[in-house]
């Protein structure tokens, strides 16, 4: 069967979801009012509150939420075969992510453009806000560790991509100054930067001295000692340290200097990547060689682990932060909630869909697939590498030479991951400062102290040793924990949405059902992993993962209890408060 059929099936469900379900949600549940004066008009200030055309806002929203995560999750989850991953991505996007993203946007629009955290305080109370802060803290910590791990591994497997990625940094700073000091436009300079980056990638693919290969520098794969420390690979250890030093500076600079121009360049890359992959798919029409369901996948059950392996791409709590943080302040008309919020989630679903297709069409045979995806650990370790190869194979359909295509794909993914790393370390710094204010700890509210805590804890987690192996051997194990914290965040946002809808007199089921589903899956998955895989009484005891897993487990239970108590109180009181 051609991979095109998987894409068409996905397109069809996304289309039906947008055409019918989102219409139902917008008209019958949210009851969007075109006459409502949105915060963008009410508080118009030319900075945060700016009424924006819905197509522009959708583009901005989509590029803010899309990154490397909707690629990595599906690339791992195809371990159980393509069908479970495809069904979860497609149905998750239509019934959970679409409602979550548009719902958080709608809630925020009806509440002066306030963020989900502030709404948690308003709808449930101070306790919920603190819970929310801790979950975001956990999420960004996981993001930092996982994405640093991803970049380090991509640098090791694609040394020809390193130079291009590093060249982007000074050029982005130049664009930042160009726009800030001279009020210049970004389109042309950013296209020049892209040409320079891809040109470097092409040259580096053929010219060996331009490939920054730390593995070779340290004397091959066997080098596992770095400054006397035992690491899974000296090259990996070094890359993590370099990345953390970079991220320290990147996250303390003003956003317009580096982060924003990089985001702008990477948005081009997102569009280019999507166009290359979908066009390559329709030109090459590759065969799906991976099995529909993988009977050999017995070491880790798909139920419930699939639902925490694919978070972004099916549903992601992080989107709620974007919807309620910036997008809600720029919405021109309340009717646009459906277009911007729901289609933003669909855009992310499309990215996850092509990630699945790139991986399941890459192998020459089913046996080759089974040999690579031999265990869940192997899938987690090698999934992204397979995606890079699979996506490169699709790109060759557009005439891109086979020697260059993996480098270009690696540059695109590393760029996504690096920008995410920048922003999430910055976000972590803000949260640490906010917790410092909350708990009267003035020292940690300082910029450099908060950044240092964020960078050190992230580095420690990225370098987590697993059992007798050296530093960095446990990185991939963090991925399900990242998915879980993301789902918890989505769960709490859906709970807020359910309460909000009830207070408006609408049915809360469209928000409550995905919330219950997510919470059940998260609790179940954490229970399985924490108490049977990592616990002190299990055969593969892992104290660090056990600790993190237990914390997440407690948070999940906390959310469930909060949900029960809030919803039962709502039922008792059954009154409409002055919200929305």
């Amino acid at each position, binding site marked *: 069967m051609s991979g095109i059929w998987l894409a068409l099936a996905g397109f069809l469900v996304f289309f039906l979801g947008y055409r019918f379900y989102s219409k139902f949600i917008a008209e019958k549940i949210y009851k969007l009012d075109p006459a409502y004066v949105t915060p963008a008009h009410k508080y118009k*200030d*030319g*900075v*945060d509150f*700016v009424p*924006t*055309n819905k*197509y*522009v*806002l*959708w*583009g*901005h929203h989509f*590029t*803010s939420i899309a990154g490397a995560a909707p690629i990595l999750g599906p690339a791992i989850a195809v371990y159980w075969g393509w069908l479970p991953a495809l069904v979860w991505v497609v149905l998750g996007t239509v019934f959970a992510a679409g409602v979550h993203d548009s719902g958080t946007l709608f809630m925020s629009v009806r509440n002066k453009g306030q963020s989900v955290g502030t709404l948690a305080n308003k709808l449930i109370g101070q306790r919920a806000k603190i819970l929310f802060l801790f979950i975001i803290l956990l999420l960004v910590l996981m993001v930092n560790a996982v994405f640093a791990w991803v970049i380090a591994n991509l640098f090791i497997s694609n040394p020809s991509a390193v130079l291009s990625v590093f060249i982007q940094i000074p050029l982005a700073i130049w664009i930042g100054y160009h*726009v*800030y000091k001279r009020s210049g*436009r*970004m*389109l042309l300079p*950013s296209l020049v930067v892209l040409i320079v980056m891809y040109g470097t990638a092409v040259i580096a693919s053929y010219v060996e001295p331009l490939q920054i290969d730390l593995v070779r520098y340290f004397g091959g794969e066997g080098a596992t000692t770095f400054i006397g420390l035992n690491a899974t690979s000296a090259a990996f250890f070094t890359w993590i340290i370099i990345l953390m030093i970079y991220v320290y500076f990147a996250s303390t600079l*003003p*956003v*317009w200097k580096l982060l*924003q*121009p990089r*985001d*702008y360049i990477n*948005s*081009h890359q997102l569009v280019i990547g999507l166009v290359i992959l979908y066009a390559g798919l329709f030109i090459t029409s590759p065969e799906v060689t991976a099995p529909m369901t993988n009977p050999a996948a017995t070491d880790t059950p798909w139920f419930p682990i699939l639902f925490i392996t694919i978070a972004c791409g099916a549903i992601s709590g992080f989107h709620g932060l974007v919807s309620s943080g*910036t997008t809600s302040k*720029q919405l021109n008309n309340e009717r646009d909630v459906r277009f911007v919020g729901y289609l933003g989630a669909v855009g992310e679903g499309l990215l996850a869909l092509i990630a699945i297709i790139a991986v399941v069409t890459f192998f020459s045979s089913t046996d080759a697939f089974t040999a690579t995806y031999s265990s869940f650990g192997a899938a987690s370790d090698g999934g992204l590498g397979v995606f890079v190869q699979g996506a490169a194979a699709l790109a060759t359909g557009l005439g891109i030479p086979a020697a260059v295509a993996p480098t270009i794909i690696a540059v695109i993914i590393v760029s996504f991951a690096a920008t995410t790393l920048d922003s999430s370390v910055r976000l972590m710094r803000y949260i640490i400062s906010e917790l410092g204010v909350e708990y009267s700890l003035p020292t940690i509210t300082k910029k450099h102290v908060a950044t240092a805590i964020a960078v050190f804890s992230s580095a420690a987690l990225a370098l987590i040793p697993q059992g007798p192996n050296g530093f960095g051997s446990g990185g991939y194990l963090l991925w399900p924990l990242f998915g879980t914290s993301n789902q918890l965040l989505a769960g709490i946002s859906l709970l807020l949405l359910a309460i909000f809808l009830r207070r408006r007199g609408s049915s809360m089921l469209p928000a409550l059902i995905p919330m219950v589903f997510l919470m059940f899956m998260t609790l179940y998955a954490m229970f399985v992993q924490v108490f049977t895989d990592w616990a002190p009484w299990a055969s593969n005891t892992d104290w660090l993962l056990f600790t993190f897993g237990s914390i997440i487990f407690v948070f999940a239970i906390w959310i469930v209890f909060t949900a029960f108590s809030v919803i039962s109180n709502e039922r008792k009181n059954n009154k409409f408060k002055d919200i929305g």
Partner: protein
Amino acid sequence: MVDQKIWQKMKRVIELYDEMLSTPHRTEIARELRDEDDLFLLLVYSDMLGIPNPAFYYTLELYPFIIERFHDWHLRMGMEHSPLDGLRCC
């Protein structure tokens, strides 16, 4: 004629695309400029707020130009009402 129409459409699509990507950047630049403006307003009003300003005599000349922005400024600085007795804007 047809070519011109196509060109106009292409131009519009490119503008839309540029706008999509540059919206967050525009926000950050506007915020940075507003922060600089806020600092400038603080310098201009510093004498009235109790911070000695040797250039006060000259900054007085700027009042007619910045008074319109005074209300937004004190709101942004977290002051519900005008902090200056002499300037009652709300």
